């Protein structure tokens, strides 16, 4: 497999997705014993084998799974989970479970992919706020909260006024070169924003597709990724997130809606890539910081440990990976959580080495068992 044109799309499910209610152990009595109210009964799931079923609300996942393009990584996690969102996310972002790390794993990967930082769009985050996973000092990453308004002087509609305004901005930021280290850095970052915005300028006009995405945050973001990717601007890593998974309360109306939006969004995105003949080279990694508690609390579920991740793509070898964590109460972590069965850094290093063609050891900080989730 030629990795030089492979692209990775990372989707973060923020808040801790309830893995057990996504990939449901629909025949296991321990599940029904633990989950009194926040439970998917047999009428609400679509079986994929004798023990596991996909939540009906994520029926698009079932279609992708049946087509052999979805790998389910069961029981993913890290040692000594402390159930903090922030610490959890930090660990997933920096691969540092024991100390506070600053460098994001994808930022480090970007530095390998584009060592001289030639293309400000090698890494693109769609969403608000640069995730720590993408942040490494000196690695330019373009972070776009709204593709239509990215850049500067966006509120100005009149063409001539806009031109003059951007010219002035360019003058001011360009002149900062040679005016002291910090001014210079800010100046360069401002020019990067302009450069990125310039390249992205044509994206909306260029993009055509028969796929109609639903109107929600994750679908919009995936559509933006499709728009940028189909414009062929050299992006190798995209990042986006879907929020709202912290379902301590009201899980039953919330969680089904989220996974429906997610699964439909990913399905549309894959169709879109197919339509543009780009499906061969795109891998989607979906992760969340932790799974949720075995027992529900009557309205929702509290923070847990072991969860699940997913890989999607035409070159993904579909199926189940690792083992579903034991549901037997005697095996529960902290006496109440699913115990993880595979370290998340195994998946990272697999994706880095086998998909992106990057040596992973220094990025994930160690050697981890690799999977074989790709077709070629």
């Amino acid at each position, binding site marked *: 497999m030629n990795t030089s044109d492979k692209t990775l799309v990372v989707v973060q499910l*923020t*808040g801790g997705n309830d893995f057990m209610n996504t990939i449901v152990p629909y025949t296991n009595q321990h599940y029904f014993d633990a989950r009194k109210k926040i439970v998917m009964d047999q009428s609400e799931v679509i079986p994929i084998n004798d023990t596991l079923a996909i939540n009906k609300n994520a029926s698009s996942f079932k279609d992708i799974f049946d087509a052999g393009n979805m790998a389910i990584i069961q029981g993913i996690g890290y040692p000594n989970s402390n159930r*903090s*969102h*922030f610490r959890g996310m*930090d660990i997933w972002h920096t691969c540092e479970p024991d100390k*506070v790390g*600053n460098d994001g794993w994808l930022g480090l990967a970007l530095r390998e992919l584009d060592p001289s930082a030639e293309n*400000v769009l090698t890494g693109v*985050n769609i969403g*608000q*706020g*640069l995730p*720590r996973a993408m942040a490494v*000092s000196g690695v*330019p*990453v*373009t*972070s*776009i*909260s709204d593709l239509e*308004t*990215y*850049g*500067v*002087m*966006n*509120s*100005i509609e*009149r063409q*001539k*006024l806009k031109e*003059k*305004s951007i*010219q*002035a*901005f360019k*003058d*001011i*930021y360009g*002149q*900062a070169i040679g*005016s*002291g*280290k*910090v*001014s210079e*850095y*800010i*100046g360069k*970052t*401002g020019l*990067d*924003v302009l450069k*990125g915005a310039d390249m992205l300028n044509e994206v909306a006009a260029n993009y055509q597709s028969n796929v109609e995405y639903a109107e929600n945050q994750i679908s919009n973001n995936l559509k933006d990724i499709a728009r940028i990717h189909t414009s062929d601007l050299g992006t190798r890593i995209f990042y986006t*997130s*879907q*929020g*709202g998974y*912290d379902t301590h309360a009201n899980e039953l109306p919330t969680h089904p809606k989220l996974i429906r939006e997610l699964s439909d969004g990913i399905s549309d995105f894959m169709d879109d890539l197919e339509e543009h003949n780009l499906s061969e080279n795109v891998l989607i990694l979906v992760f969340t910081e932790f799974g949720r508690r075995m027992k529900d609390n009557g309205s929702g579920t509290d923070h847990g440990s072991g969860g699940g991740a997913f890989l999607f793509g035409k070159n993904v070898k579909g199926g189940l990976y690792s083992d579903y964590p034991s549901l037997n109460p005697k095996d529960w972590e902290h006496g109440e959580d699913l115990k993880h069965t595979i370290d998340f850094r195994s998946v990272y290093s697999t994706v880095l080495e086998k998909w992106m063609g990057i040596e992973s050891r220094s990025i994930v900080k160690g050697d981890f068992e690799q999977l074989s989730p790709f077709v070629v």
Partner: protein
Amino acid sequence: MKSDRQLVAHLMRRAGFGSTSEELDELTHSKTYEEIVDDLVNPERFDQIDSSFVERYYGGEPVAVHVGKWLFRMTNTLRPLEEKMSLFLHQIFPVAWGKSEHGPSIYRQIEMFRDVGLTSFKTILLHLSKDPAMIFWLDNNENHKNEINENYGRELLELFSMGVGNYSESDIKNASRAFTGWTFDQPLSLYPYGHHEAEFKFIAEDHDFGTKEFLGQSGNFDGEDIIDIIVSQNATARFVSRHLYNFFVEDEVQVPSWETVPPKDEDAIRFLIGAFEASNGNMRFILKELFNSDFFKNSIGFSKVKSPTELIVGVLRQTGEYSDPTHGIHQFAVTTLNGSPYEGPMAIMGQRLMNPPTVEGWHTGFEWIDSGTLSERIGFVEKQFSDPDKPGVADIIDRLGSLDDEPKLIVDRCLDVLGSIIVRDETYDSLIRYAENLKGIGDDAGVHHLVQMVTSTVDYQFE
């Protein structure tokens, strides 16, 4: 004119969140620079904000609401240094909501900072050590007589007072022993009453009353004795001086590097250490000395990058949109972590107040800036200054007049009206060219475009 307008503007940006044109008129007209400094360090001379009013508008538990309350205070206080000191202490003693998810205690800590910020460093450390939010954040409630937890003892020495290299592992253990039994009490159970402020509690049975050896001294020390010894150390005077310099005067390298990287201005640090030692760490006295010093006055210009909070509050003070309690100021602080899929500008710019990323706090200075945060800074000012109905914007436009005047005069007025801003010569020339161009465009262009450009410059990112 009793005082220099640019210098007063500089002082008000650093000691507060900047001044409007009207405020500068008043200050420079009625007071000398030294009198203004004296007012700043004596906030009791000015009325407090009526907090019942604030509570009524900004109720509820989400952390964004608490940040909203704080933003309202920063924007409208008549005692700017109180709020600035609270921000300073929050940045050097960063406690995140994310661990406890306990909004009231986190906000109570900010109120405590407001109360003690201008007292002595000893008082500050003592209140900090008894603060429930801090106790929970660094696990001092897990620090027991027979089973010490070193988390608080370690950070107290490493991050909060002396810095690495000035104490031993044994000092950490002994300090931790002295804080055993310092815990907190939760007045009401979380379910079904929700979060209420917790209170400090000393449990004598869980306190180690034995003899401790700490920094060369020996005795039956408790936490307060340990703090006494800490504040008498030269290393503490130096560490606090470097923090004050970094926050009020000039960006230094990140704190963990201070052990190896010398200060940018050793003389200034020595001066601050002298003030610390002469006053037993009295912050009011040290800050007065700092603001009146030449090195402070000379730091005007491009020595400090605005934090997101400083940028946002500075702009909100200009636009006047939140000069009365109004719903919505918390929108600037909303984060995805509150269950909302949207983030406010403060989070996008990289500073979730009351929710710092780690116990080390935020990386400050130029590290505030990346393409996403810069794009957000520029988008933010564009948006805030685009609505002429906001009272402050109307006032700015009124003071600026039309584009018909001489471009140089318009730019001069614009820089002045926005709080006597300083820009580099190159920026100044570009702004004049831009004003000329605006003039040539006709009806579509207005003076507010110049305001947006001034606040979008590289120069404006500096405080």
